[in-house]
């Protein structure tokens, strides 16, 4: 396992199968697809940054890498992907065995190129705030202070724009010194880019060209007209602050039995077009702060009367959410527009109610946006997350823009697609498989926004159909993969990160053991989670539990060690042993059991799943549980109800929530105030330890998780209980031990699950 982590640390890649089933048949029988979870901007200080342009293969355009065989005598190198021999150009003339360019060092599988000459002037990042004003005064107050803080933290050179919306959309002109000035758009109808171009005076003095879209400073929009709306943060801080200070509740009256009229769709559409006109192609993000459901105009998710409830999963399943599909389509178009322009949509949805994250998901995910879901703008989940975005620290996000992600790989490997925050560029080539998953049909993707944690799940397809015998296990049984990420670094420079890896492939019936050694069960869990989530959204009448169960059974049948029809003989290699538990927890997780959550929450969870790396995904699937007690130091314990004890403190990290759970005895002591008394310092430390751990988790994580501190038998304890394996329920034969707990559920426990698995696997 640890070797996988090392590889990940170096290259940011985790593969489900590090020994690859080499043929289509083999791959199919392996159940878990050959796939990689790649973190393009995986932070690794060891990655060299090369101040020159990469050397590319003249046929396949792949980049010179440590797997390229260099012939120093003839100054040639062999491309491992297409086997083309290429000449070293002039600047590589000095290359020799002792004088290797950095990209040929074997340990430099991942390098970055930063060719200054090519990039031209640094274009500063653009932040366009889109702020909902249909909120109660209290929420507006919270939002104001959060925004004011964000404005303070904005990098000086970054460009800022400001849009507010309610019934109408107001685009504030920051560059107009005399009066506060804003352009007001009706929320009830969609506003196209052409209209914005014309109506907001970008064409003044020019005749509109009949063909082609004119946008950006280079293409005819004057810098002055852009500078009306987007100003360097340092220049508009005052007016921005006064705008934020004067934010008011949307003045249009709302009757008591109605929802506020909120035109989120129109506002986002205006924002997208504004960025498209002003700064197409350069990094920019729309940061939308939304306090409720969209009720007005395009993209509205619910009608205004409060008597109509907001759609639930059940409504979506039954097709009784009349506005859902229309809204999704609308936001998809906005997403496409943003992708085309290279801009990001971030969503800060802070309301007790749903706001339509489920509908907007498509736009956020395609553009690689950030999403934060909280109950209120006053909640730390929102406030701290927002601060996290702008604050530079060790764990900052390293927001980068305008990424283009490309893959080269050996010709027997094809790409089905990517599940993750990106959009297919529809660059169909020999590498793209006919079977498509997620964003496919291409070998290049757009990643408008990406950060150091953004992780893509790439699903491969083995193209080789030959019988295993025919394959000479001869000279080359390696597959090569090259991931190229061309992006605008958060300092503004364009960079190219190249990661090239190789994996051995095997084929034939005798390769099972080899395959097992290469199985990364964490990565597999993460991939399965993404796949099943994707299929739940994409496929009608998809039964995720059944699908997962079948997959698990097939996998165990293939790789398990057992005698037929003898469940008790069943055992799994350590390489696979935790995988059933992952699947068990995945079946119970929020990704599958959606009915406990609103569509917004589900969308949120899935978006996070789809952008996080393996480790975080695993935490989402199977929370970690740490026990603190006098008896021992902090130790991980089974995610089981039996972990609960009166004298224990449990720290549950389910990624979105961090729960500190005081056993009943501990809670009583704490309430008695022993921790403040002399002679009980150890108790105070015991109380303190999980708190510190939680803090460190919170500090590093984005979005900031929700911290729940609770006591055994308290109402908040449900946050823990819901995640635990119900090994003891009200139905159990044996009551829980004193100080222990039980769970009121009919769900099967892990033990039952395993029994069934064993029985089915050996059939």
């Amino acid at each position, binding site marked *: 396992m640890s070797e996988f982590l090392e590889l990940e640390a170096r290259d940011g890649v985790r593969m489900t199968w590090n020994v690859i089933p080499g043929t289509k048949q083999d791959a199919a029988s392996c159940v878990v697809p050959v796939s990689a979870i790649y973190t393009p901007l995986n932070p690794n200080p060891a990655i060299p940054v090369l101040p020159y342009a990469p050397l590319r293969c003249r046929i396949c355009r792949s980049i010179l890498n440590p797997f390229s065989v260099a012939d120093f005598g003839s100054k040639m190198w062999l491309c491992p992907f297409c086997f083309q021999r290429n000449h070293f150009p002039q600047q590589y003339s000095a290359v020799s065995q002792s004088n290797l360019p950095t990209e040929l060092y074997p340990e430099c599988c991942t390098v970055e190129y930063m060719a200054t000459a090519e990039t031209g002037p640094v274009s500063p990042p653009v932040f366009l705030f889109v702020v909902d004003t249909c909120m109660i005064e209290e929420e507006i107050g919270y939002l104001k202070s959060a925004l004011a803080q964000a404005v303070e933290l904005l990098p000086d050179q970054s460009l800022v724009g400001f849009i507010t919306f309610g019934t109408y959309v107001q685009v504030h002109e920051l560059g107009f010194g005399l009066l506060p000035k804003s352009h007001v758009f009706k929320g009830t109808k969609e506003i196209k880019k052409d*209209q914005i171009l014309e109506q907001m005076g970008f064409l003044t003095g020019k005749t509109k060209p009949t063909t082609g879209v004119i946008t950006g400073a280079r293409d005819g929009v004057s810098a002055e007209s852009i500078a009306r709306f987007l100003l360097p943060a340092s220049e508009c801080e005052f007016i921005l602050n006064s705008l934020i200070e004067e934010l008011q509740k949307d003045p249009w009256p709302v009757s008591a039995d109605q929802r506020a009229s909120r035109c989120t769709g129109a506002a986002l559409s205006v924002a997208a077009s504004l960025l498209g006109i002003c700064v197409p192609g350069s990094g920019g993000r729309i940061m939308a702060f939304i306090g409720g459901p969209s009720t007005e105009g395009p993209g509205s998710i619910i009608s205004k009367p409060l008597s109509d409830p907001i759609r639930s999963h059940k409504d979506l399943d039954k097709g009784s959410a009349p506005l859902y599909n229309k809204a999704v389509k609308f936001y998809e178009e906005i997403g496409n527009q943003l992708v085309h322009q290279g801009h990001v949509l971030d969503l800060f949805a802070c309301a007790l109610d749903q706001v339509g994250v489920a509908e907007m998901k498509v736009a956020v995910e395609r553009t690689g946006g950030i999403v934060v879901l909280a109950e209120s703008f006053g909640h730390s989940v929102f406030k701290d997350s927002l601060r996290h975005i702008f604050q530079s620290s060790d764990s900052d996000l390293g927001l980068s823009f305008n990424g283009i992600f490309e893959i080269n790989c050996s010709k027997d490997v094809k790409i089905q697609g990517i599940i993750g925050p990106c959009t297919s560029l529809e660059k169909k080539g020999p590498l793209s498989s006919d079977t498509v998953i997620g964003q496919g049909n291409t070998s290049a993707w757009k990643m408008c926004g990406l950060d150091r944690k953004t992780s893509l799940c790439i699903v491969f397809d083995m193209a080789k159909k030959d019988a295993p015998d025919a394959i000479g296990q001869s000279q080359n049984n390696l597959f090569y993969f090259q991931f190229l990420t061309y992006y605008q670094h958060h300092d503004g420079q364009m960079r190219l990160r190249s990661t090239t890896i190789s994996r051995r492939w095997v084929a034939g019936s005798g390769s099972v053991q080899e395959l097992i050694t290469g199985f990364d069960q964490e990565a597999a869990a993460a991939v399965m989670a993404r796949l099943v989530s994707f299929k739940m959204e994409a496929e009608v009448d998809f039964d995720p539990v059944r699908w997962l169960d079948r997959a698990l059974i097939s996998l165990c049948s293939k790789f398990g060690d057992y005698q037929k029809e003898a469940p008790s003989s069943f055992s799994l290699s350590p390489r696979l042993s935790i995988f059933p538990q992952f699947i068990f927890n995945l079946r119970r997780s929020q990704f599958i059991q959606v009915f406990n959550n609103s569509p917004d929450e589900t969308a949120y969870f899935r978006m996070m799943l789809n952008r996080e790396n393996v480790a975080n995904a695993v935490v989402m699937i199977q929370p970690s549980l740490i026990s603190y007690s006098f008896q021992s130091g902090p130790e991980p314990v089974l995610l089981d109800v039996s972990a609960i004890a009166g004298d224990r403190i449990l720290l549950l990290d389910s990624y979105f929530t961090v729960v500190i759970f005081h056993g009943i005895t501990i809670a009583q002591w704490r309430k008695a105030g022993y921790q403040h008394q002399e002679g009980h310092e150890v108790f105070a430390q015991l109380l303190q330890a999980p708190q510190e751990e939680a803090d460190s988790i919170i500090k590093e994580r984005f979005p900031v998780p929700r911290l729940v501190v609770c006591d055994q038998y308290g109402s908040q304890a449900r946050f823990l209980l819901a995640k635990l394996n119900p090994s003891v329920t009200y139905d159990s034969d044996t009551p829980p031990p004193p100080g222990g707990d039980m769970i009121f559920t009919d769900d099967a426990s892990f033990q039952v699950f395993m029994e069934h698995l064993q029985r089915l696997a050996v059939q």
Partner: protein
Amino acid sequence: HKTVLSALSCPACSRQIPIFPSIPVVAASMSRPPPPFTPQNPTPAPRPGGQSPSSTLPASFSNLQISRAPPPFASVGPPQGDGPVPSSIRGPQAPPPGARPFPGSPSPPGSLFACPAPSVQQSPPFGAPPAAQSLQQQRPPFNGPPPVLPAQVQRAPFGGPPAASQPLPYGGPPAAVSQLAPFGVSPVAAAQSAPLGAPRYSAAQPPQFSGLSGAVSRPSYSGGSIPPFGAARAPSQQGPYGGPPQFGGERPGLQTPLFGAQTAPASQPPPFMGVRGANAPAFGPPGWQGQTRPAASSEFIVKDTGNCSPRLMRCTMNQIPCTGDLLTTSGMPLAIMVQPFALPHPSEEAIQLVDFGEMGPIRCSRCKAYINPFMRFVDQGKIFICNLCGFSNDTPREYLCNLGPDGRRRDADDRPELCRGTVEFIATKEFLVREPMPAVYFFLVDVSMNAIQTGATAAACSAISQSLSDLPEGPRTMVGIATFDSTIHFYSLKRAQQQPLMLIVPDIQDVYTPLQMDLILPVSECRDSLEQLLESIPSMFENNRVADSAFGAAMKAGFLAMKPTGGKLLVFQSVLPSVGTGSLSARETEGRSNISSGDKEAHKLLQPVDKTLKTMALEFAEYQVCVDVFLTTQSYTDVASISVVPSTTGGRVYYYFPFSALSDPAKLFNDLRWNITRPQGLEAVMRVRCSQGLQVQDYSGNFCKRVPTDIDLPAIDSDKTIMVSFKHDDKFQENSECGFQCALLYTTVYGQRRIRVINISLPCTSMLSNLFRCADLEAQFTYVVKQAANGIPSSSLSQVRDQVTSTCINILQSYRQYCASVSSSGQLILPEALKLLPLYTLALTKSIGLRNDGRLDDRSYWVSIVSSVSVSLAVPLVFPRMIALHDLTSRDDEDPLIPNPLTLNSENIQDNGIYLLENGEDGFIHVRNAVNPATLEQIFGFSSLAGAPNLLVLEQFDNVLSRKVNEVVNEIRRQRCSYLRLRLCQKGDPSGDFFRSLLVEDKAPGGLSYVEFLVHVHRQIQSKMT
């Protein structure tokens, strides 16, 4: 010089009507110092016969301020039928129309003209330069029986001092008339009477005709204390428009008359309206039993004794034909001109306000007519008979009152609704569909590139800013402002201590208001910030490069902001609206080529281009939004299309072409200020009722009509006139009366809902000659002008001109055929009352609206003003007034401010002269070549015309001439309620040619000379008769 008119009620109801002029009153006035114009005022000798015993004077009259002077010819209107009607059929017993000879008139044509044959004893030429006179005095050669009165010799038929000694025969027996001997004066006499070289119009003695009857000549209040716009009356609670008088003169510290901002104040604001001075008789003598109204252009004072002031309502004929056939035969139109808020003379009694409380005004239960002095109470007052429908109504118990011996109610004189032709009632709940609206003023200012660069925006902002203090006081006065180019910019002013917020509405196809509230605020809350904003708007848009202007969309957006309340939308527009809803295209280029090629469809360019703006306007009107458009432009703006909006919503177009940042801001400001301060009403509905026998045929003016009977006026003001035409649906009995009642339900700017009821009752006649004798020339001509204007967009110009000419010919022919048939067919015989009709008709065919050359916009603008123009301004608009400026210094201070007008004839133009020609809209100053540079220097401050701007700013310099010129100009402005746009016309320049073209008596490329025209008319009549 003024004459007092006392509007006597109808003879039929004579029981109700007291007899007027009272001796005490006379005596009182005698003791007063002589009026300034004494020299011209004959010493009035109270005519014994005319006096009624003072005891009969109704108490309510006893303290009338106006009756200070004795009536010069206090003609007691004898009851109808008291004397035989002087028949004019036999022949014109002509009054000496020729009171004013024109020196230098063209020599008479060879044709034989009879001079105007007046049927009325002596209708003095209305004060303007009736060219007809010029003919008369040249008339010697013709032996027309309608003799020219040797006016000079006889001291004029009317009222010179000598006449004063002889009681004029108003209403008297014909014998009296004959004493005057104007009739039948032989041609010889006429010859004698050609007093060439006599002083021009002033030769005529100030006629002392009293008004209808019982008129009292009034003392002068031109003494200087009178504010220009007649706010002399104090009673604020009775103010005609529901509040303190708003005219400029009243404001403390503001001595300048309304239009005085740019020029020096007239030191003595002359009295109100009318031709000042004695140059011409103010109006004709009471033609026939007090049925003739004074000429609209004259100065007179009305005493309301049952019939309304002719200012408010005026009929084209002062006797109503009994049958439709008679009317058709006469060729004359039957219509009334209603100007419900017409400015009163400062000396006139205010319109009284009557509150019936919960009960509401008494109305006829059948026709819903309002109680008025002509309703008869019978059966001890228990029953009243409607004068319009004849229905007998039970008098409500609360309203019962016994009748006096004269048959009138005993309380008639104490109840304004029973003794006044015009009263106002407080509206009860049944007249309210909602709370009376507040006075809302929303300003829309064009800030497109052109508007900014020409200075139009700055001018508009400055005008608005200065006018803010003129808005009605009180918490109910609200303002809002927006600017627009290709987008619409609203301003939210409700931000205490903060700068206003600018909200841009960019969607000009589907507009909306950016906020629901805070766009329109009480002026008291936002005055300061609004002023600041107005100051900064021009600089804010200084570098605006947006050339497009979304006029229609901006109006719509402004409308949406005002929709909940209604109000006045004042739009300042500078270019052709090129984008957004209701955008227009430059049709003019197309139009020009069409016109030159003689396209018959050319008039289509004078129609609105499509229905968009009309639809919009109807919606505006529905929500009580009145639009006024100020066009400060330098190019074609399609006035034809734009003017649809104001004309449908009760507003008007103001046109400043070509806009000059130098001279026009002053006019813009004054126009805006007058627009705001003039008496006006909001959310009004008007209906005119008339006696059975007639029915309303049509309304015409600036309003919106949804149902056939009523017209909706989002706003109505003192400048607007509505023409109502009638047709017969039955016969009248001879000696019966026909009543007209105009009821206007409106809200004052202070939020009170009222009904203004205006009554007039006219006798009916079956004698054609009576119709001619009692014809009201100005009203009839106004009718003709309005009809012509209506026709311009739908027919070709030549058709309209032919129509106008044939109307004139038909009338004259009817007269010739039926009333003067004995005359020789070689004579052109004109009815006295209508003797100026041919001249006016000629002028009309040469007017801006009907002439062939000229810009489309000018013509459209002309059409748009005419649609609401009042009687008193319609004539000058077509037939301008020309005066000489260069010799003003030769006039005494005692002389009337405005010198006598010259005839519109190039022979009157001397080479060393400077002339001002004004039509109520523009003032054209024509400087001749040989003018003394010193004179030039004195008036204009420059001694050479080279390089002088076409648009003048008249400054006052420190010299007498300059002072006098300014006085004259200001006086004209005051009279016209309009700030003349002064333009310099130089010879050899297109402007000079234009000036020449306004001299309507001259032969012009596009028209006949006056003499030729008369010949033409004569021939036409002859050919028709044979």
